[in-house]
């Protein structure tokens, strides 16, 4: 498989080949070449099956890392192709022309992360949400619990105690000073 890594590196400046298992590897490519790489992988290297597309919010680095997982059923090998795009105004090429289901993933990316794939069909329609007016919820700076607490009423009357603090209050309250 290392030949593939080399070819990818030569043709598309790919780097960081990592062999996770004997049937799974990952590699990073420049975001601008996503469509080229995937088309090449699909047509030339036999990675015909797109398992899924997703993104990781690497908020510390200020990027979304896209993951396209493709599979070559003949060699029984899966490849995770990573591409970093900046978090502000994230845009990436659409691959809906390569795979028919890709537009759904891209619609999901748009709704869940705010990642735009120009040209992808129905990308601006709501996917799973309805009337969502917050940050895209899969971004790490969206706090699910805080939103839930603020929006959905909880049944009152719950109270809990920390064993250590409770024992301290019960057994040696004088130590608290």
């Amino acid at each position, binding site marked *: 498989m290392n030949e593939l890594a080399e070819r990818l590196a030569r043709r598309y400046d790919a780097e960081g080949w990592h062999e*996770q298992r004997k049937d799974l590897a990952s590699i990073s490519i420049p975001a601008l070449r996503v469509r080229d790489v995937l088309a090449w992988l699909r047509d030339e290297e036999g990675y015909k099956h797109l398992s899924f597309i997703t993104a990781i919010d690497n908020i510390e680095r200020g990027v979304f890392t896209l*993951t396209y997982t493709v599979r070559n059923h003949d060699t029984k090998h899966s490849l995770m192709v990573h591409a970093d795009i900046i978090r502000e105004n994230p845009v990436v090429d659409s691959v809906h022309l390569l795979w*028919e*289901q890709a537009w*759904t993933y891209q619609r999901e990316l748009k709704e869940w992360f705010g990642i735009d794939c120009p040209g992808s069909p129905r990308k601006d329609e709501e996917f*799973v949400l309805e009337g969502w007016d917050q940050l895209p919820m899969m971004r790490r700076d969206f706090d*699910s619990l805080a939103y839930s607490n603020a929006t959905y009423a909880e049944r009152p009357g719950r109270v809990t105690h920390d064993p250590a603090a409770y024992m301290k209050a019960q057994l040696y309250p004088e130590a608290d000073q």
Partner: protein
Amino acid sequence: MKRDRMPYIPPAERATPDLDSGKYLLMWQGPQHPGITGNMSLRLVIEGDTVVDCETHVGYLHRGFEKLMERRSWMQNFPLVCRIAVPEPDFNEYCYAAALEELSGIQIPEKAVWLRTFSLELMRLASYLMWIGGQAGSFGHGTIIQWSATMRDYVLDLFEELTGGRIYHMYIIPGGVRGDVPAGYFKHVLEVMDTVQKNLDDIELVMYHNAVFKLRAEGLGYIPPDWIDRYGITGPNARAAGIKRDLRKDLGYLAYPQLEFQPVVGSKSDAFERARLRLQEMYQCIDLIRQCIDLMPKEGPFRAKTPNPLYWKVPAGETYVAAECTRGEYGFYVVSDGSEKPRRVAVRGPSYTHAVSVMERLVRGVNIADVAGLMVSLHTYPPEIER
């Protein structure tokens, strides 16, 4: 150009019926509709009895699992994952556990491998039994669903006995499984397998040798073989088109390399073929369960040691673990940043492609009466689409 080998039909290349013309009728099938699988909906535009346009609408079951998982520790996610696909939770458990074990470098004991295989096959059978009722029911055959739901219930009894849960088994825990089989369990399993097999024989006679069923299902929802890669179709839907792909064979995970089976492959690729193929896979499941019972080691530990669940830190890394579920490739993509909580967990459910892009494409031109049957024949579970 090799790229042209696949003629391209853009997904949005759809008829644009003028809804105001009075010629068309806009109809929503679901979510409150008995002919829909689970809680989702189809926005159908029909002309007479023929569907001219379809949009899949999901999100009625969206609970934000992937976000919730980022909030919970590695072990706390274990009870959560099984809820992603309600009728078939075990595959979630397996994929998550396997991904976690791979990232942490934990080797699970032999016994756990077999018990996992066993419970996955049992789950597959239960899931298919649920499907077969749905398939018959979607064409209005109410008798089959009555039988098969009971058969499924017998299988769920087995799960209850083994795991303590009927629907959510939470048995395949990271590190192994949660318990050994109880005394006399396999005897019970074999009895139930006999009952199920006998009933499957009846169902085959009634459902698959049925003029009306054939009339309805044959030719319905034909998936051309060249769509398989283009649409990312996996599992029985792909195999029915003659593509021999089964992750159990291809990936050789768990104890599958030691089991004797051949993927069932069809050719006609219509609803009936898919139904027939699934029936054969049910028989195959029963056979695999029996093989598991024979080959399973009798003794030995069933769980490897794992770190303290409250403070389990997983080394940074990422992996994608896939398994062949009843609907196709079920996968968990897990990313760890080295902390006590996952960085990202993405779930790849086969219904994602089957119920959205494939369904929208296939349903065009189909009689409105066949929409439910077509949907069921793709065997989709909405919760795994929206997670």
